[in-house]
């Protein structure tokens, strides 16, 4: 049977799992001494070590540490167990046991990774081998805490395409039909003087002068003024994002801010502007105590305020911690569902999705909306980007999705450094939170519900998350554009999109069907939400890792089979009727039918 040769699911070294699936292509490995290093990657040390595998028990092997990764291989079992972990994925390194503890493997190292797994090693007591490894790991896993550079700045990787060019704000706004007679692009923030966490180019109402913007900035937390994220081509309704107004305990008002929001409302004649405050009502009220708050009814007469009840970063961090407890190393069997429920992880996903659905629904029915939370860089980014994904099919393409991330997350200052803690040893930092992971999970839920609507596949989402932590690329480094500029990120590091787009075929969903004007509304019910097993439980060897979904495989098989039959049929036709070799000019319609149907198949879906 003919089957197309398909690149294996995990050709990226990152995805090598600890499992025994050595049959996977990715594990095609040379002897340990010559692990394929990345350009710019340097060997630091190697040592004999014991890996305490939660599934296979203690395994003797060799660990190999570079300035980028921890690589372990054990030939104790067949197939070999291999670990390949970028050092930046490590969140915490601890010594376990020691001289006073009993047992065989008492000199232990416990490594907590940011990607839902823990690694335990045991070392020999002699020669301070544990101390040496510990110190090296600590130094290279947390370079920022040691005044060293992140690997992204050391990498010498070269790609054909420069991924940094994927997002050009002006091009993207032009694609949306901007500027127009209601909306203009302003360069007021060219030097980050208006707002140091916003990008340089902003889209604001045509009617609002730069002076107006400055006055509005005084009333918005961190000067994150309401600016346009997206405009609906037909009804001109917009999604505007910002931070909370600085209302405070005394209930301050700001005429400029009030007028500014009304200008936004007027732009497409929306009778009532809807302000989505992502927070639960009580939290918004509590924020008044610290100078923040929400838009009051009396001050904003032509607006209605809706709270979306999405919890803060601390709640989300705690929820993911609980989730990890029930999936790693062992998956709860008998009480799986109630354990899953008690983590609330999917419930938070449901709230974020249903918030985004409300935003998208409002906009597609012609009303403009304003979205904010406290500072407008966590929940706000989730809501605007998900709503845009529902509304605009461009963002559902491979490249469009990259633009969406660059725009709503990276350029608008989601604080990646603080939320992920790149290269920082302070694992208990309260600023850390899996907000971006939660967003990617929401996207995954959407791809599950609409398997033909996205050009990219699950693999892209997993690779994005892996490189969210890996620090191999500059894409997710730093908190905002101004800091990125100061660090010359674009010239000194490689973009993740350079790598992705060099191998785009491995990230393409074969079932993708172009439907340009379609709004996607996922169903935000627990009946449809499911745990993303292929991400959260991928280290568990009992979950079969399929190199490719059976559906994709079958689809490619059938495509190949069809091509083969068509070819044979044509050959037969030729031999049958040698007088008319040009099939396409033949008067019998049947001869051309197979070909016709092929082109037909690609278009209608």
């Amino acid at each position, binding site marked *: 049977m003919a089957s197309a040769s398909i690149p294996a699911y995990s050709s990226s070294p990152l995805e090598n799992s600890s499992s025994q699936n050595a049959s996977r292509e990715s594990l095609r490995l040379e002897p340990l001494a010559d692990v394929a290093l990345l350009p710019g990657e340097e060997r630091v040390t190697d040592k004999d070590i014991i890996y305490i595998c939660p599934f296979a028990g203690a395994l003797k092997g060799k660990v190999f540490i570079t300035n980028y990764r921890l690589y372990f291989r054990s030939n104790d079992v067949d197939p070999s167990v291999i670990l390949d972990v970028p050092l930046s994925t490590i969140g915490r390194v601890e010594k376990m046991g020691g001289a006073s503890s009993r047992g065989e493997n008492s000199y232990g190292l416990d490594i907590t990774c940011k990607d839902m797994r823990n690694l335990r090693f045991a070392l020999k007591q002699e020669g301070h081998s544990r101390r040496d490894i510990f110190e090296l790991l600590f130094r290279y896993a947390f370079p920022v805490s040691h005044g060293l550079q992140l690997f992204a700045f050391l990498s010498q990787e070269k790609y054909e395409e420069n991924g940094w060019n994927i997002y050009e704000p002006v091009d993207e706004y032009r694609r949306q039909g901007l500027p127009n007679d209601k909306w203009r692009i302003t360069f007021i923030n060219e030097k980050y003087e208006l707002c140091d966490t916003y990008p340089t180019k902003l889209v604001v109402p045509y009617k609002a002068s730069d002076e107006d913007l400055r006055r509005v900035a005084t009333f918005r937390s961190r000067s994150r003024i309401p600016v346009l994220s997206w405009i609906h081509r037909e009804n001109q309704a917009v999604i505007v994002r910002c931070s909370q107004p600085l209302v405070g305990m005394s209930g301050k008002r700001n005429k400029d801010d009030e007028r500014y929001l009304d200008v936004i409302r007027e732009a497409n004649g929306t009778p009532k502007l809807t302000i989505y405050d992502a927070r639960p009502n009580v939290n918004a009220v509590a924020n008044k105590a610290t100078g923040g708050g929400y838009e009051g009814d009396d001050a904003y007469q032509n607006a209605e305020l809706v709270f979306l009840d999405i919890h803060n970063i601390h709640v989300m961090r705690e929820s993911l911690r609980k989730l990890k407890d029930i999936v790693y190393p062992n998956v709860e069997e008998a009480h799986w569902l109630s354990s899953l429920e008690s983590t609330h992880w999917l419930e938070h996903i449901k709230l974020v999705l249903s918030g985004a659905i409300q935003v998208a629904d409002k906009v597609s029915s012609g009303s403009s909306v304003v979205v904010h939370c406290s500072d407008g860089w966590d929940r706000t980014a989730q809501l605007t980007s998900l709503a845009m994904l529902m509304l605009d099919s461009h963002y559902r393409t491979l490249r469009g999705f990259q633009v969406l991330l660059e725009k709503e997350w990276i350029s608008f200052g989601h604080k990646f450094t603080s939320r992920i803690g790149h290269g920082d040893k302070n694992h208990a930092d309260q600023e850390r939170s899996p907000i971006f992971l939660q967003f990617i999970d929401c996207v995954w839920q959407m791809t599950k519900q609409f398997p033909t609507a996205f050009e990219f596949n699950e693999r892209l989402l997993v690779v994005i998350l892996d490189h969210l932590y890996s620090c191999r690329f500059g894409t997710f480094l730093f908190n905002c554009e101004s800091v990125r500029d100061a660090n010359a990120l674009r010239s000194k590091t490689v973009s993740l999109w350079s790598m992705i787009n060099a191998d785009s075929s491995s990230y393409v969903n074969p079932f993708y069907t172009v439907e340009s004007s379609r709004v996607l509304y996922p169903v935000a019910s627990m*009946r449809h939400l499911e745990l993303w097993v292929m991400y959260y439980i991928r280290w568990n060897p009992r979950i079969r890792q399929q190199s490719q979904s059976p559906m994709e495989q079958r689809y490619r098989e059938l495509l190949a089979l069809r091509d083969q039959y068509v070819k044979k049929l044509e050959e037969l036709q030729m031999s049958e009727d040698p007088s008319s070799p040009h099939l396409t000019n033949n008067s019998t319609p049947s001869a051309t039918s197979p070909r016709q149907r092929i082109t037909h198949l690609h278009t209608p879906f």
Partner: protein
Amino acid sequence: MLSLGTGGGKASKASFVSYVTPEEIKSEKEPPKKNKHPELLPGEVVFCSANPILKFTQDDQSQRGVFGTLLCTNFRVAFVSDEEEDAAQHFKNRLYGEHDIPLMCVDSIYGGYDDKKKLITSGLVKNKSPNKMIIHCKDLRVFQFCLTFTKEEDARKIFQGIVHHCLEPKSLKCVFAFSYSNIPNPERWATTTFDSAEDWNQEMKRTRGWCKIVTGNENFELSQRLPQVFIVPKAVSEEDYAKFQGLGLPIWCWSHHTGCALFKASSVPMLQEDTVAQAYMERMLNDVAQNHLYSVKTEDLSETLPSIQEIQLAYTKFKQFFLIDNTTDFWMSDVKWFSSLENSGWLDIIRQYLQKAVEVVECLEAENTNVLIMEEDGTDLCCVISSLVQLMLDPYFRTLPGFQSLVQKEWVAGGHNFQDRCNHLHHKDKEQCQSPVFLLFLECVWQLLQQHGPGFQFSETYLTVLSDSVHVPVFSTFLFSSACQRVSSIRADSPQTQRGALSCPAVWDWSVQFDRKAQDFFINPLYAEKPVKVVKKSHRPKHQRQLSLPASAFKTPSKKSFFKEETDSLKKMLRLRRISRWMLSPDSPQPSTREFYEAWLRKPLDYHGLLLPCLSGPAIRLWVQRYLRWLPEVQVFGGGAMAVISRLSELLAQVQELKQQLEWKGHRQETNHRGVPAHLQPAVRHSSVFPFASSRNWSFRPVIPTNVFQSLLVPDSLADQDDEYTEVVSLV
């Protein structure tokens, strides 16, 4: 009135079957003038009808609906809308429409009195008739009819009529199948019915078993418990066949290619001092052991698996989550969805049954021992386990005709008591026997199917439809309590058949329910037939079936040589009695199946070989299609797995057409081929519940969850914190 199932004995004479109460006869004489009737089936009679009745649309809480006529016939409760129905339906059932409920399919009826809802339990409702009637169906549809627009007299009659015909005990002869007449069609998928010795013979040849066929029960002389034809180990002596009326007799199910086999038996009630029975059982075990290598493992399933009562209890709780009649309830129950599912215990029962099946598979596949499973009747839990084992081990049963043959072999010929388990006849004293055992089996099959899609020729739609068909009173397949009852009802010369022989079709005659196009939904496009390898005849013995993984695959020790040990000891014990009751062994079987599963997992997956289910928490899932198909809130428009499946099906159809063309060409018989093959329909966007619930109007507005927040009780300390509170303070 009618007593059936007493075998050759004389049944009491039934001269008149009364379906109707006297008042109904009156109403039938003067049928309402403009009432529309559905197209009646041959043999179908209308008992009563009422118009106008308002049928609420499920979509929302508003009391909107459609007016029409509500009827009750000897086959169904039917609703005929006054409005024109949109005809475009992809998956139309030929027997009953989407507003019809076959009488057997009615699960429960509620009367709505103003805002109270009362469960109706018996036919005669003394007090005033309700203004609303809510019907919950066994296929999980929910209907709500408003009775206040019609004349009070009519409303009372239709309500009582429906309650009477749906809930009151009835005799078997009243089941519509006995009135229905239909000329059987050739089946699309040839199904072995296991009615004849020939079928059993073929099956034994196919599996290369070497047991003996017993044909002496043609007229149930040996025992009414036993099938007409059955297979027992060679060593069983003839006088043992009917020693305890067939109890305790090991019935062959299937032979593994190594020679060991699976047997099932009902258990002999045994008192301590009953040495005769004990000796008999010892002898039976010995006989089974002699089938292969003198080894046998035996287990009484009723001691280790949830009983049929527990199954019933769990399913009763479970199904409530899907019989939802308004949006408020839907979103209320969404909050605690996962824990509700878990608390019903249904999914855990599925897991336990699959687990047990894996244990049996391990004995056959890895240890090559004979296995004898037992339970009280030998026709409930044994059927589930033996069919699951065969499904995992034998790829033939994963084809569509193979699966149908398996159901025939283990369930129909095997004598599963469908009648009482489904309580088709609503006998009050049979209520404690009611249990969805067959549905449990289909659930387990679905779990295997969703984990190993490419291994199955049939689709989940097929399984869903099959589970519905159990409650369609037209088929002989799921109607009877035993093989004996079935045979005596079908035989034309039977003294009981007053109304002629039963000539109703088997469920496998799918054309009775669906046209050919709809039947295409039964085919799983992921399934690819095993490529046929040309093997030189001289080289290898002829294989009657595709072998599952060779046993040797498991004997290569990977790390701990646990299988090796077994085989060594096996050789040593070749001549020893090796009879163990493995449930009695002190060490739990769990760890060993885990290793067995993991050893299997390390091998490359062969969809035409042994397939084992993953039983970890996230792997056991909800059968979304069956349970959620009627709930409008969960329909994903233009999405769902169906979007991909239909793409595959379309492509598959194309490939098959091309292949056919090629074959015609190859023969060169036709100069003009059969025209241009029909172009693919421009892709229609389906909903995720496609092909079910197709007539619902599309809504382009999203469903927005309500009361999502109440549930989320997070520790205050965290929730009250602000994202960046330390910094915000400085801003004030």
